[in-house]
């Protein structure tokens, strides 16, 4: 621990000196306006399927900044693997890299992310509030959000009308010939399961998702969500534990009418359903006390980060900002079907609705809770999985629900304190 502090201190000192050095050269370059001799080498990481786009965007960045000579090295590291690869050896990592927002907390506490010091207000204003929140730790911005991601519902238009998909209870009540499963989702996956608890109004890790001692899934709202889940898994028309593979197979053979998953399955489901392909936000559910609530969900973002040990922080920040600007988010949306975080683009309903899945995602994102990025959030998944499996196995009844929820919350929190 001590060693880490020392090394991160020296790293900060080093970057600090480099930063000032760089700043002064940049200024002098501006003053003489002829810094074309400066060669800046930046390493950029992106996923393999995004490489051609990344190259295009970096080249346009170089073209837009002709006063410096930019040389780019590209590495293949997907957003999901960024934390693992970077923390292995920060100094060998990329200057600019994409990562998933649930890694923000750990990357910041490991001192791997460069605090955004350039154009911060502009970036905050350009992107949606939840996405900025997911890149912020203790009031400081550490990244540039560019993709928003959550789950929503795909359905078969020939089996449900647009009104029916608004309510889960209506959907489950309907008898559809040839369809065995009216609604399916991966019950024991905490990511999906949370939608019921969040929908009922529960909070994981406090109001802003940063309080590691708070989880109120066992209060009376959590009880209502739990009771609904007990009834749901008993319903023969509900498909418990449908993971991606089962969902796609179900849409392909017509045994599923609606299912909860994300944009990564859009192409396959569209191919299976053809003209009947449709996507929308999650339905609402009617709790036992008669209240109708909209299902929530966990939202994730993809964020461009700058390496804390980069040798060219100003250029790296400029590049990260460029990669996440309006124009490049349009490219991501139009050519890769990635949902934007840019405010202007996210509110451009006309443009977004050309892509059913992205439109549904944008709709659902308004109801979703930002997936917390505090390092301890890793301790949520296992208890959630255990609870889901207990539900499916029928081990949870109304009589022992309170007890089971208490245990659920206790294991989420106790795992935290033992960290």
């Amino acid at each position: 621990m001590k060693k880490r502090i020392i090394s991160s201190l020296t790293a900060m000192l080093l970057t600090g000196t480099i930063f000032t050095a760089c700043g002064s050269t940049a200024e002098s370059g501006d003053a003489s306006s002829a810094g074309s001799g400066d060669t800046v080498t930046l390493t950029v990481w992106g996923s393999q399927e995004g490489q051609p786009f990344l190259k295009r965007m970096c080249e346009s960045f170089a073209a837009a900044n002709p006063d410096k000579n930019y040389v780019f090295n590209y590495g293949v590291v997907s957003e999901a693997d960024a934390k693992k690869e970077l923390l292995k050896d920060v100094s060998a990592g990329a200057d600019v890299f994409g990562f998933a927002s649930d890694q923000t907390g750990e990357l910041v506490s490991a001192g791997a992310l460069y605090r955004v010091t350039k154009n911060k207000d502009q970036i905050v204003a350009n992107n949606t509030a939840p996405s900025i929140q997911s890149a912020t730790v203790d009031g400081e911005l550490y990244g540039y959000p560019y993709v928003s991601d959550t789950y929503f519902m795909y359905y078969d238009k020939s089996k449900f009308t647009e009104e029916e998909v608004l309510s889960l209870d209506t959907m489950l009540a309907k008898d559809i010939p040839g369809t065995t499963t009216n609604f399916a989702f991966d019950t024991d996956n905490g990511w999906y399961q949370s939608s019921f608890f969040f929908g009922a109004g529960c909070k994981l890790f406090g109001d802003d998702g940063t309080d590691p001692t708070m989880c109120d899934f066992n209060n009376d709202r959590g009880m209502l969500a739990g009771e609904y889940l007990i009834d749901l898994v008993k319903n023969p028309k509900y498909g418990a534990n449908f993971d991606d593979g089962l969902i796609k197979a179900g849409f392909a053979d017509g045994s599923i009418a609606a299912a909860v998953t994300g944009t990564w399955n859009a192409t396959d489901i569209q191919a299976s359903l053809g003209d009947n392909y449709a996507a929308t936000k999650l339905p609402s559910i009617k709790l036992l006390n008669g209240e109708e609530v909209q299902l929530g969900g966990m939202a994730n973002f993809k964020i461009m980060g700058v390496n804390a040990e980069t040798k060219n922080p100003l250029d790296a920040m400029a590049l990260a900002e460029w990669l996440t600007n309006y124009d490049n988010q349009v490219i991501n949306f139009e050519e890769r079907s990635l949902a934007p975080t840019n405010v202007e683009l996210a509110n451009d309903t006309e443009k977004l609705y050309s892509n059913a899945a992205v439109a549904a995602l944008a709709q659902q994102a308004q109801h979703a809770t930002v997936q917390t990025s505090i390092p301890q959030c890793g301790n949520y998944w296992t208890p959630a999985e255990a609870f889901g499996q207990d539900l499916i196995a029928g081990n949870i009844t109304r009589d022992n629900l309170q007890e089971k929820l208490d245990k659920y919350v206790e294991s989420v929190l106790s795992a935290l304190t033992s960290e």
Partner: protein
Amino acid sequence: MKEKSKSYYGQQKAVNGFIQVLLLVLGIIWILPLCWVILTSFREEPGSYTSYFWPKGFTVNNYVNLITQDQQFKFTKWFFNTLLVSVISCLGSTLIVLAVSFALSRLRFKMRKPLMNVALILGMFPGFMSMIAVYYILKGMNFLSNPLVCLTLVYIAGAGLQYYIAKGFFDTLPKALDEAAYLDGATKSQVFFKITLPLSKPIIVYTILTSFMAPWVDYIFPSIICGSEYDSYTVALGMFKMLEREFIGAYYTQFAAGAVLVSIPIAALFISMQKYYVEGVTGGAVKG
């Protein structure tokens, strides 16, 4: 008496029949996943899960696409990367293992016993414990930009500890042969190459097999070394990427095809060396 023996045989038959049926069932259970992977690799319809066992359509396109397309997954490149690493480190480590075994079996020097004990204890620690340290050493030596060289180096460098079985085998060879050679003026290396090795075919085969297998199927070490060098991935690392949620749907059948292709070199090696293999494993254990 006659009847009694008859019922005895009947009983024996029943027991044997039961055992046969049990073995048949176990055999089917064991072979089923293999058949399933092979069937999946020829399946026409994509997707990771199907509700039926027998594919609706058959195609070789999974193999063709896997080998020819390198937009997303560079299977062919990874395959030859792995083959190169495996073959070179197999040759290197076989030589080292045999030489170490020979030294520890035939030569007498002061630190022999302590060295063997140290090696035994070191061998008990799982390899991945030192991986991060190895990573930084390689980084310090500026090798990291070329992960394949790193992998080969590390696999060869770690080989010496695997001497037990080969040493056990060398111990069974009569010392009189060596002594006769020494009397005729042979050097130690001549004894090793001209006397010991020709007599040790089974154990050489065994060493070749194990030292080829290890790099061929290793996942953990390449995952630390390769990092962002996509072109230098090994096949195990690359194929694991195919199972990420974005790709599993479209690439699952290709993944199965890859799994079949990956097993071909190992299977070929085993089949060609099979008859020595059992001899090697048991031969080394006689006086281990």
